[in-house]
């Protein structure tokens, strides 16, 4: 089943020499873990934000489970999509519990269910509920904050998750750990993930398929193996050559994923 589909989506911001999204078309099947890879400014965040209507495209259509998102109330749409923003964006005046309970409160869950789910999510992102639920964001490390951001997006069990460089602010060791956890969470959930990163290793490690972008265009949308073996153009070829370990893993038929 198709979860997300973009058809000829264009978006240009005033004063830019290239389009942030240049005739982007892509079909994403349910249950995939799509990583979106590209250098800074290539339109990754813009792509994500058109899906939850934080940005409206200039032209083109986006479908969520077959339904044009323009026909859904944006507020309703956003409540049904998990969103981890690039800047983490935890609310400093709310405790961890209240941050994670943001969407439950909007959906008017009762308190018992909310508390239970908050604790479940905290455990899921490997933070001890008793220790963390009453803390404020200022009392958390960068990595812990990103875990809370993830928990907050996951709590209502959305069918589609948009993750914008969710591990950007974390050191290599914790990043590795979080990647593994997220992969496990995804594997057990059968939900559709769109995960933005500019880290090639991360994109290849996590993605069941990878979207490679440059200057608003999708250069290639394929599995890791396909990209290594048949890079779509010179840009992709050079990109994967910069990270030799990535290609080694796949060319030697290794179990990179």
């Amino acid at each position, binding site marked *: 089943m198709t979860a997300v589909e973009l058809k000829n989506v264009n978006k240009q911001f005033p004063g830019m020499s290239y389009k942030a999204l240049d005739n982007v078309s892509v079909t994403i099947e349910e249950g995939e873990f799509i990583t979106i890879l590209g250098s800074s400014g290539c339109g990754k965040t813009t792509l994500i934000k058109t899906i939850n209507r934080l940005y409206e495209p200039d032209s083109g259509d986006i479908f969520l489970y077959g339904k044009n998102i323009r026909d859904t109330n944006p507020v309703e749409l956003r409540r049904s999509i998990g969103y981890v923003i690039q800047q983490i*964006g935890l609310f400093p005046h709310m405790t961890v519990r209240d941050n994670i309970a943001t969407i439950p409160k909007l959906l008017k869950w009762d308190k018992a269910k909310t508390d239970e789910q908050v604790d479940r999510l905290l455990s899921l992102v490997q933070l001890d509920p008793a220790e963390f639920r009453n803390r404020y964001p200022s009392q958390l490390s960068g990595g812990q904050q990103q875990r809370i951001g993830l928990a907050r997006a996951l709590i209502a069990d959305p069918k589609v998750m948009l993750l914008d460089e969710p591990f950007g602010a974390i050191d290599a060791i914790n990043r590795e750990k979080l990647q593994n956890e997220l992969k496990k969470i995804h594997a057990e959930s059968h939900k559709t993930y769109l995960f933005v990163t500019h880290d090639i290793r991360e994109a290849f490690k996590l993605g069941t398929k990878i979207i490679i972008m440059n200057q608003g265009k999708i250069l290639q949308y394929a599995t890791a193996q396909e990209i290594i073996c048949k890079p779509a153009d010179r840009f992709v070829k050079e990109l994967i050559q910069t990270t030799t370990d990535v290609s080694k893993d796949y060319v030697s038929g290794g179990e990179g994923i």
Partner: protein
Amino acid sequence: MLRSYKVNAALFFLFLYREESVVMDVFFEYFEAHGQDYIGLLLGHIRISLLSVLIALLIGTGIGILVYKHPIARAVSERAFGILRIIPSLAVLIILIPIMGTGVKPSVVALVILAVPPILINTVQAFQGLPQSMIEAATGMGMSPLQTFFKVKLPLAFPLMYAGIRTAAIEVIASATLASYIGAGGLGDLIFTGLALLRYHLLIIGGGSVAILSLLTGFVLDRIFRRMTRYQRA
């Protein structure tokens, strides 16, 4: 050796309290004879101040929130209140007499003019400085504009807005003294009477009460602030 101010203050009060102290007697006499009047003046002072700050709060935050996104509207409103504020309050009172007569109303107008600018300016700055990422997170998770405003924008803007309100409140309490000049009551009555009759103890009681009221208000407002922003020090 220098004595601490606490020791000095204690000695001063001891001096005042000596049984045969004539200095102290006039104060006792005043409070014995005019205790009720004093309470009335104090409450009147508080009432005028509170009323003025509340009206200024509505006007200042209201306009601030309406204009902060629009540079021209912002400049115009800030400039307008800035200019109004330069006019000395006493002059405002006198200008207002032919229009509004004497009493509480013109006094409140003069005090509101004084109190709006700090509230307005701080509100504008508070809302302009809101982290975009926080607003985007709120919107992106499905908060409506109204929910984003009350659950995220307002709480995050609160500390800076509050600082403006505090400044305004202290200033209003001090300036409300002037309201007595046009018959609005308040602790200023004591000061003006004391000046007219050269009764220094009335000056001291009036001036001292205003000072203590200001300090106390500042203290209480600070306690409330600490309570409401505990997350910042968590």
